[in-house]
């Protein structure tokens, strides 16, 4: 160990090469690998993720499933209790493999709403696989005799889409705002964060209700001149409300990263700004962004349900969980208890939101071990 004996550190070429090779083979565990491992060890979160992926697939493939029409009502079987046998009261002519394409198109228009071409493809695939067979009223029917199972599955599409789109909207605004504020710093940062504070203290729901009612009047203008239909406006409005927390969190993270030692070390080692941004800043900010995204989605879903309750959400014939839950709640009456219209939508919604919350908590624990167990 003493300096007097420099020879001790001399290595012959073979050993040196071996050591170098070993060093190259040794791979550090990246943030993501580490997080993945921790997430897998957190059983509830892992199950929540599997459940969500499964449910997402199910709702994406809804047109492929042999479900009844979520829209067509049948007043003979209103509020029918769940039953296992088929019954043909709600038979779709379009499902007949022999039906000609014009009839099919018309029928689909009537039994669903405007669907994308992908969904049309999935429906014709369904006709090939299942023919005219369709499920019975396994979860019962609602007050207009519409099949509850089908409504829940189709409704999940709208709900998931709305919450994803709105969460992404809030993500884009929040990340840009927060990152800019944190990077620039100084007076501008102060001003921008004060603005966020002001917006925080406004009861936003009122503004949103206001905005959505107002948008009703401008519908045509928006649709013709800006290409925005009601749903897109909806995403934008909700996104515009939910970005505040994201902006704060991102700004905090950027501020602490800017002066973090490993960033300075990278700079000393001669890394370019671009390299630092891609390799150090973005991954670190990304982790916290993902966590907040998973926590924003359930919030947006609840908000959608809330707006649907007030009659400001998705419009029929489209369905969303909020609308189904509202229908269920309004079907409550003292004479007969139609438990299925309340319980099943609530279960679907509750399970998904629960899974999202659990996954969000788990991701936060996995990505930020310091935060473990703190709420």
């Amino acid at each position, binding site marked *: 160990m003493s300096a007097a004996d420099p020879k001790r550190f001399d290595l012959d070429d073979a050993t040196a090469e071996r050591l170098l090779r070993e060093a190259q083979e040794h791979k550090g565990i990246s943030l993501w690998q580490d997080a993945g491992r921790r997430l897998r060890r957190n059983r509830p979160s892992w199950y929540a993720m599997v459940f969500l992926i499964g449910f997402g697939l199910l709702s994406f493939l809804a047109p492929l499933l042999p479900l009844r029409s979520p829209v067509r009502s049948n007043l003979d079987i209103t509020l029918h209790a769940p039953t296992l046998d088929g019954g043909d009261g709600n038979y779709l002519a379009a499902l007949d493999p022999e039906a000609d394409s014009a009839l099919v198109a018309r029928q689909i228009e009537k039994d669903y709403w405007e669907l994308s071409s992908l969904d049309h493809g999935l429906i014709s695939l369904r006709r090939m696989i299942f023919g005219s067979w369709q499920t019975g009223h396994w979860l019962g029917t609602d007050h207009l005799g519409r099949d509850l199972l089908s409504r829940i599955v189709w409704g999940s599409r709208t709900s998931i889409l709305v919450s994803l789109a709105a969460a992404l909207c809030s993500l884009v605004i929040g990340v840009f705002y927060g990152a800019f504020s944190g990077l620039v710093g100084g007076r501008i940062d102060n001003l921008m964060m004060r603005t966020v504070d002001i917006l925080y*203290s406004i009861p936003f*729901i*009122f503004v949103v209700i206001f905005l959505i*009612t107002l948008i009703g009047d401008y519908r045509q203008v928006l649709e013709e001149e800006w290409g925005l239909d009601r749903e897109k406006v909806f995403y934008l409005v909700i996104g515009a409300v939910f970005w505040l927390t994201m902006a704060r969190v991102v700004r905090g993270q950027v501020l602490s990263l800017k002066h973090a030692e490993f960033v300075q070390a990278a700079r000393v080692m001669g890394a370019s700004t671009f390299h630092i941004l891609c390799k150090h800043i973005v991954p670190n900010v990304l982790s916290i962004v993902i966590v907040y995204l998973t926590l924003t989605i359930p919030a947006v879903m609840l908000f959608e349900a809330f707006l649907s*309750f007030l009659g400001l959400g998705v419009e029929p014939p489209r369905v969303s969980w*909020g609308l189904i839950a509202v229908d269920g709640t309004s079907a409550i009456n*003292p004479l007969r208890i139609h438990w299925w219209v309340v319980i099943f*939508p609530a279960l679907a919604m509750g399970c998904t*939101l629960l899974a999202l919350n659990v996954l969000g908590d788990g991701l936060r624990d996995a990505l930020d071990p310091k935060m473990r167990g*703190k709420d």
Partner: protein
Amino acid sequence: MIRFLFRRLMWFVVTMTVVMSVSFFLMKNVKGGPFDTERALEPAIEANIQARYHLDWPLWKQFLHYTGPFNLDERGLAGTQEKVLGGVLSGDFGPSFRYRDFTVNDIIGQALPISALLGVVSMMWALALGVSTGIASALRRGSGVDLALRLAATGGIALPNFVIAGFLIIIFVFMIPLLPVAGWGSIKEMLLPGFCLGLVYAAYLARLTRTGMLEALSQDHIRTAQAKGLSPRTVVLRHALKGGLLPVVSYLGPATAGILTGSLVIERIFFIPGLGSHFVNSASNRDYTLAMGVTILYTVLVYSMNTVVDLAYTLLDPRIDLAEEA
């Protein structure tokens, strides 16, 4: 303290200016006024109505008249004596555009006490349930009780409150006829709506209390208190609770805002004639002045509640310096 309050007041002025001007100009830009009916009105009648509500004035003048504090109307409102003061700043929200014979102040005066009572009841539910379950699950950490309570709390957060209200109505009104389904006035009628409204916040408060209590219980002075031989009850109630409830106090501000918002839904389900249902109706009826009045009122409430909470926070935790916080 004074400095902190002063700064808050300054930001309050800014916030209110933003809220008032944004909502005012949004409203004024809507097509279709509050007096649009199926039939077209006679031009003379329409002009009369326009003049009555000053819709014929230039926008800036309408805005100034609305905000006050000076009444810009030289004629004085029809049927009322001349006033010098007027507008929101003097506490006058103007006439309702839809309920012809009422001013916004009349309507708010009727509805606010109801909503406030509902809010207080649900806040009491939330605090009682949330804090006690939070303490229970912190004291029995890892046990079945803890797990069950945490699961219930997450469930409470995950379901929309109108669904929970539906369940509870089925159970407590129809299956076990204990409570009335709707109405307002007696204590029995307040229990269910208050519970439904408070449940979500009870769930949040339970989580916060649990975390706060766990942290407080692991601190040195608690160990000292236990070593002195104090009873577990004294240790928890006297020493741990004070520190453990800090996160709860800071959540009260957002919780108030949330309860105000949630009341929109609950008041509709239970047919309670409160401010929330008025707001939703006014927005869809285009009763501009009423909608704005409610928005402004809620902004003031939320803002002052947040300020009170911040003040209370410093009283409980002397380590926090208000001057820096502001």
